[in-house]
């Protein structure tokens, strides 16, 4: 059955070209009325499919009803499922939610209990991703069955013509079955080509280039023309007052890192003043949220030239929330874990749970900041958050931008929460307050945690950004992830 093996090989090859970001699971932590919830959504790789959803509730016993609401459809049209208690884990519930159409979905968790009524809205992207290659055992079983069916067709044909014609009939029967099998595989590979060519979710292709004048260096992000030749950007919504949050990471050493906020130009593209980064090849990751609630991470490479000598008028002023950090190049993998990072100004940051590299059940990255005296440092909100994290696998197969509320785009959450409040108007009804995290950030805390699980094993570099005494400080950590869920 060479054809089967061929088909399996084709599938394997196609799957090797990986997605840009590679971290599809969604983590959310926040308030839902009187409760505090942690929601983990594992979306399917193909739509329609089911999203494994688990909700951990703190703040009292509650019954849960969970909906997956497609953007643009009213919540009352969505089916509601009761959260099933997870045996042996108090306060944890699970549900399998069906996602029928590609696009943005709001996972709405309704809680009812003695403490009152609460609701959390978790935005997710329901999109088709690269199919996983067929497991070898499955391929082997199918190949064996195909062989049995071809041989069986021959035996049946031979049995149908007892006597001298049997042998010829048997050969004919097996031949016909083999041809049908080949046609079937051709149909399959056409389906696969169509799926990979037309149905996969591709973040909008963009191009970045550096512009230089006497005043400085700038990075311009333009959209690559789509099928219809249009280079216009879709309508975007702001996340913490910015339409685009971008990270610049120098390749392949990952030593230079910047978090910048390009702003739209009159032509509709985006531009930002390049921070004082060394020249080199950079990868740009740009997070945007569409009006539909769909969030995307755009990605491209560009070359940054050296700093110009003169200092003239700046074409674009830097955004006050822009920040950067330059450290040593990442060593060759396997990486030994870096647990401590000097932040400058006497401050240092410590990774409190590096053991997450071997234990995916921990489910969060936690860091603490100390001042020069070894005392806990008071963290201030940086763009409304107690911290920002960027997680990157060395080869770029994984990149995630995290906050203490998780991996969601808060702009998507606002879009989807406002689009329809479902059973709005009920007494005691409490919407998720998208600004709850902002309030939380005003409390003094010396540590910050990001709900996350590493999606794939391998060597990772992690950047953690916090604000202390008005300064944005960036800690850089390395680890070698061994075990994932």
């Amino acid at each position, binding site marked *: 059955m060479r054809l089967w093996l061929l088909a399996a090989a084709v599938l394997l090859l196609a799957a090797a070209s990986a997605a840009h970001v590679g971290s599809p699971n969604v983590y959310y932590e926040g308030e839902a009325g009187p409760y505090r919830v942690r929601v983990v959504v594992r979306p399917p790789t193909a739509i329609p499919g089911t999203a494994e959803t688990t909700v951990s509730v703190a703040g009292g016993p509650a019954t849960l009803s969970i909906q997956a609401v497609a953007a643009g*459809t009213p919540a009352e*049209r*969505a089916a509601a499922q009761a959260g099933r208690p997870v045996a042996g884990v108090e306060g944890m519930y699970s549900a399998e939610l*069906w996602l*029928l159409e590609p696009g943005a979905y709001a996972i709405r968790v309704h809680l009812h209990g003695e403490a009152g009524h609460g609701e959390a809205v978790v935005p997710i992207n329901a999109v088709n991703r690269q*199919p996983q290659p067929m497991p070898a055992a499955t391929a082997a079983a199918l190949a064996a069955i195909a062989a049995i069916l071809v041989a069986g067709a021959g035996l*049946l044909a031979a049995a149908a013509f007892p006597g001298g014609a049997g042998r010829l009939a048997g050969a004919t029967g097996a031949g016909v079955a083999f041809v049908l099998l080949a046609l079937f595989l051709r149909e399959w590979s056409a389906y696969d080509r169509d799926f990979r060519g037309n149905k996969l979710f591709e973040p909008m292709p963009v191009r970045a280039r550096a512009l230089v004048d006497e005043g400085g260096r700038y990075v311009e992000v333009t959209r690559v023309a789509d099928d219809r030749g249009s280079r216009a950007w879709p309508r975007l919504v702001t996340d913490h007052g910015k339409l685009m949050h971008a990270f610049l990471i120098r390749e392949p050493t990952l030593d230079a890192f910047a978090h910048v906020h390009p702003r739209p130009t009159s032509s509709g593209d985006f531009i930002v003043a390049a921070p004082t980064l060394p020249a080199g090849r950079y990868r740009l990751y740009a997070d945007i949220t569409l009006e539909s609630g769909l969030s995307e991470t755009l990605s491209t490479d560009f070359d940054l030239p050296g700093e110009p000598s003169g200092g003239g008028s700046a074409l674009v002023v830097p955004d006050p929330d822009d920040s950067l950090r330059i450290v040593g190049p990442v060593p060759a993998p396997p990486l030994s874990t870096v647990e401590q990072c000097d932040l400058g100004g006497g401050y240092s940051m410590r990774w409190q749970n590096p053991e997450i590299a071997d234990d995916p059940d921990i489910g969060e990255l936690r860091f603490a900041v100390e001042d020069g005296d070894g005392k806990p440092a008071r963290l201030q909100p940086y763009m409304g958050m107690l911290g920002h994290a960027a997680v990157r696998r060395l080869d770029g197969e994984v990149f995630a931008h995290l906050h203490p509320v998780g991996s969601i785009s808060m702009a998507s959450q606002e879009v989807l929460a406002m689009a329809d409040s479902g059973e709005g108007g009920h007494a005691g009804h409490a919407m998720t307050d998208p600004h709850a995290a902002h309030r939380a950030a005003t409390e003094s805390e010396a540590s910050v945690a990001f709900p996350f699980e590493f999606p794939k094993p391998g060597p990772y570099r992690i950047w953690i950004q916090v604000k202390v005494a008005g300064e944005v400080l960036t800690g850089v950590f390395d680890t070698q992830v061994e075990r994932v869920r």
Partner: protein
Amino acid sequence: MTIRGGEVVLGMVLSATAMVVGVVWDISWDASIGADSFWSPPHMAINFGAAAAGLFALGGLLASGGHRHSAVVRVGTGAVVWGAVAMLGWVILDDWWGQAYGLFGERWSPPELLFTVSAAVILFGTAAAVSGDAQEKGFPGAFWVAGIAMVFGVAAMTPYGLPNLHRTATFYLVVSAVFPAILLVAARATEGGWGATRAACVYSATICGLVWILPRFAARPTIGPIYQPIEAFLPPSFPLLLIAPALAMDWVLRRLDGEVSRVAAAGAVFVLSYLPVQWLFASFLLSPMSDNAFFAGGGRHWPFYAEIGPERSLFWGTEQDPIGLMTIAGCFVAASVSSRIGLSLGAWMVGSRR
């Protein structure tokens, strides 16, 4: 170990019946509840039905050593084993397919093709085994299997068999290509005559039973968006009036000699006795008069995900896919070819003996 052929064949017939009823139930499940898993009851009926048919057949082959029966019984029994192995391949492929390309596969995606072929071969094999066995031991069940095969044929046509499409050329061309063959296998292979009529009765009674029974059980969609208020299982469409051509073909064939005249007559009789009847009946099925529990018509019953307006009780595609003289000629050709196949297969099933 001795297994009597009649018992093996009866087991195959009942298993194939469970499989086909499972298919119709599964279509209703998908339209009413939406989410189904490998372990949903209709899937169990399909999978266990196919597996049991295969095991009965395998048991029959092993117990007899394959020698005591006629070629027809051997081929039929072997075909059921073949179909069950193909169905196992479908289960494995479909499970992976759903993860890779999405659940609820498109119509005629490769897994669906494989499933259709597997089930059709199981039904063909069962019909052959029953017919051949009837020559030996007397279990005259060919018409029953043919009726069940008609149920499967209509299920495989979903959703192109909707009454709203009963004024399109494609519908009549497909029906003319598929059903004369099944009806004539029944006519030829059933002892005692009136095989096509009896098969059509089995088909109509099975679908009617599901039309009347399924809506008695509660069901609620578990996926959104939900556009149709559904509280019970959706009934399938009322049976096609294939009883009319079945009666006509049985009646005419008894009065004809010679294969050529039979084939020509069967094709013509099918087209003349089916097209006008279904054409007229379709108006009734879309009218408020049929909006009741008996006919489940009037354009009332739609899957929860269907966002449908007044077109629910209108004919569709009458302009894009109109019925003309060429359609009727095409139906005649299709029905004649189908009749030729059915008559030959039926003759083979009862004719070739040990």
